[in-house]
C-alpha cells in the first residue's frame, strides 16, 4: 500500500497554523502537567536515593520505618559499634555515627509559616561517612558546644538558619557556624549539631539511628548474622541507599499517581480538542480526499494520512510541553515528606525515560483524538467526496 506523502500532511497543519497551535497548545499544557509530575516524582526519588552511600549501613529499631520513630539505646549502640566488619579511618577510629534525629518547627523565609525541619545530632565523623557533604560557608560545629551547621536549602529557606544567625530550640540558643552543601541530596534539608548536645537538649536517652561504613561488602553477611544472633539487638540494619530509596517511595508514588490521574482527566479535554480539529480538517478537505482516492490511494492510505496528521499535531504539543517541563529543572522546590514528616528540598529531574513516556502520552492523545475523524475520512465514498468538492 502506497502512502500519501508526509509533505501533504505536514503542510496541511502549517496552513491551519493558528488552529494547529491552539490545539497543540492545549495538548502542551496537559503534557506539561504530565511531565512535571513525573519529574517531581523522579526528583524526590533521585534526591533521597543520592542521600545514601553505597557502603554505608543504617541501623534502626526493629520495625521502625523512619528515623524519627526509631530508638537505639546507648547499650545497643555500643554493641553495634563493636561488630566485626566496620571500616576505620586513618587514625584507627571506627567509622560509626550515632545520631539522634528530631523534628523542629521553623518559620520559612518566604512566608513566615512554620514547617518541620530535621535536626540531626552527629559528630565530625559524619563528614567522613557522607563524603558528598562539604562546607560551603563557615566551619564544622565543635563537639560539646551549641553550634550547628545547616544544609544549603535550609539556610536559604528558613529564618535564623543562615551563617552567623542564632536559632532557639530545646530551650537553648544555637549558633549557626557553617552552611554545607550535600550535592542536592536529602541532607541539604537538615540541620546538624553535636549528637550528645542534642541528646541532652531534647532529653533523649536513645539514638535514632546508627550509621557505619562497611570495611568491604564481603563483610556484610557475617555482620548481619552477628546482629541476628544477638538477642539484645532488636534492630534492622540495611544499606543506607535502600533506606533512603524506601523513604522516597511513598511520596514519589503518591505524587506520580495523583499527577497521572490529573493528567488523565485533563487529557480528555485535549483529546476532544484534537478530535474537533481533525473533524474540521476532514470537513475542509472532503474534495481532496475524493481526489486522492480517485487517483488510486486506498482507504487505509487516507486513514493513515489523517491519523499521521493528528499524531504530528500531538507531537508538536508534546515537544512544546516537554520543552516547558524541561525548563522546570532549574526550579528548586520543597515539600513535606509525609513518611518522615520533614521538609525535603529537591529539583524537578528530567530523564530520557520521562521524555519518552511524555511523548508517548502525547502521541496517545493524538491517536485517540485523530482516529475517529481519520476513520470517517477513510470511509467516505469517492463520488460523495467529489460532489462536495
Amino acid at each position, binding site marked *: 500500500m*502506497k502512502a500519501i506523502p508526509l509533505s501533504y500532511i505536514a503542510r496541511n497543519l*502549517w496552513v491551519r497554523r493558528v488552529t494547529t497551535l491552539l490545539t497543540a497548545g492545549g495538548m502542551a499544557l496537559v503534557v506539561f502537567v504530565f511531565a512535571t509530575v513525573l519529574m517531581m516524582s523522579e526528583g524526590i526519588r533521585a534526591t533521597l536515593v543520592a542521600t545514601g552511600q553505597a557502603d554505608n549501613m543504617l541501623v534502626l529499631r526493629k520495625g521502625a520505618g523512619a528515623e524519627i520513630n526509631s530508638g537505639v539505646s546507648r547499650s545497643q549502640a555500643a554493641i553495634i559499634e563493636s561488630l566485626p566488619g566496620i571500616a576505620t579511618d586513618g587514625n584507627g577510629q571506627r567509622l560509626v555515627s550515632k545520631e539522634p534525629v528530631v523534628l523542629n518547627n521553623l518559620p520559612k523565609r518566604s512566608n513566615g509559616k512554620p514547617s518541620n525541619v530535621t535536626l540531626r545530632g552527629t559528630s565530625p565523623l559524619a563528614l567522613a561517612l557522607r563524603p558528598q557533604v562539604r562546607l560551603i560557608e563557615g566551619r564544622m560545629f565543635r563537639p560539646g558546644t551549641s553550634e550547628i551547621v545547616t544544609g544549603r536549602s535550609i539556610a536559604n529557606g528558613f529564618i535564623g538558619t543562615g551563617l552567623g544567625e542564632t536559632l532557639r530550640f530545646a530551650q537553648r540558643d544555637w549558633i549557626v557556624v557553617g552552611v554545607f552543601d550535600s550535592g542536592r541530596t536529602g541532607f541539604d534539608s537538615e540541620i546538624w549539631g553535636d549528637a550528645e548536645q542534642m541528646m541532652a537538649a531534647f532529653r533523649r536517652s536513645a539514638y535514632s539511628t546508627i550509621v557505619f561504613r562497611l570495611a568491604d561488602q564481603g563483610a556484610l553477611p557475617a555482620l548481619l548474622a552477628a546482629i541476628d544472633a544477638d538477642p539484645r539487638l532488636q534492630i534492622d540494619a540495611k544499606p543506607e541507599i535502600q533506606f533512603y530509596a524506601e523513604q522516597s517511595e511513598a511520596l514519589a508514588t503518591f505524587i506520580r499517581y495523583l499527577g497521572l490521574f490529573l493528567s488523565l482527566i485533563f487529557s480528555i479535554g485535549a483529546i476532544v480538542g484534537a478530535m474537533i480539529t481533525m473533524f474540521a480538517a476532514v470537513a475542509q478537505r472532503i474534495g481532496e480526499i475524493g*481526489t486522492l482516492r480517485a487517483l488510486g490511494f*486506498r482507504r487505509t492510505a487516507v486513514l493513515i494520512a489523517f491519523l499521521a496528521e493528528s499524531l504530528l499535531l500531538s507531537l508538536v504539543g508534546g515537544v512544546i510541553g516537554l520543552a516547558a517541563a524541561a525548563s522546570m529543572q532549574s526550579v528548586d522546590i520543597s515539600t513535606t515528606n509525609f513518611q518522615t514528616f520533614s521538609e525535603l528540598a529537591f529539583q524537578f529531574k528530567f530523564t530520557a525515560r520521562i521524555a519518552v513516556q511524555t511523548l508517548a502520552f502525547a502521541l496517545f492523545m493524538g491517536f485517540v483524538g485523530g482516529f475517529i475523524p481519520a476513520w470517517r475520512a477513510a470511509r467516505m465514498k469517492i463520488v460523495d467526496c467529489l460532489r462536495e*468538492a
Partner: protein
Amino acid sequence: MSVAGDGGAGQTLIRIRNLSKAYVRGEQFIPVLQGLDLDVRRAEFVALMGPSGSGKSTLLNLVAGIDKPSGGSIIVGGVDIATLSEGALADWRAAHVGFIFQFYNLMPVLTAFENVELPLLLTTLSRRERKAHVAAALDMVRLTDRVDHYPNELSGGQQQRVAIARALVTDPTLIVADEPTGDLDRVTGGEVLDLLDDLHRQLGKTIVMVTHDPKAAGRAERMVHLEKGVLVPDPAPGAV
C-alpha cells in the same frame, strides 16, 4: 435503448453492456442509468452530453471506476471493473485512469510539480524517474516555468493545465474529464480543449469527456447523448 460504437471488437477499449445504476434514498428507489450499452474505441475522443440529471456524470464515474454499478458489466481493456474489489479497483485506477475535474481538484498545499507527481507515488518509479516524468508532463502543458508554484499562485487555466499534466503523467489507458472547461472563460477553455485535442491526436489517448458545452463537445470525435439514464441517438447527426 443502446448506442454502441462502430469500432471493431479488436479496437474497443470500453465495452459497456446492460449497465444500470440506481440510488436508494430512504424507501425511495431512484434509477439513474438503465440497461445502457456503449462501446468506446481505443484512442477515441467521446463527449457525453445531456441535460442535468441525465446520468452522464454517473456514467463517467462508473467508467472511471470510482463508483460501482447496480447491474451490468463495464469491460475496460479486457477487465470487467464492475467485479473488481475495492482495493483492486484503486490499483486499476492508479494504473489506467487519468482524471480531469471541473474545479481542477489540485492539492492546495502541494506545488504544481508535487501535484503532478502525486499519481506517480503509486507506481514503482524511482525519484529520478518520477522527476523526469513530471517534467515531461509539465512541458507538454507548457508549464515548466511554474513547477514550484502553488495552485493559489496560478490562474484557473494554469491550474487546469496542471490537472491535465497530472492526468497524463502515468500514461493512462483512459482519460476521463468531467466538465473540464466548466470553470474557465471561453479563451482559456479553448486552450484546455486544444490540449485535450493534442493528447488525443498526438498521444493517441482515449478520452471520455462530460460537458454541457456544445462547442466543447464539438472537439470530440463522437458525441453520446443521455436522457433520463438512457442513451439517445445524436439529435443532430453530422454536427461534430
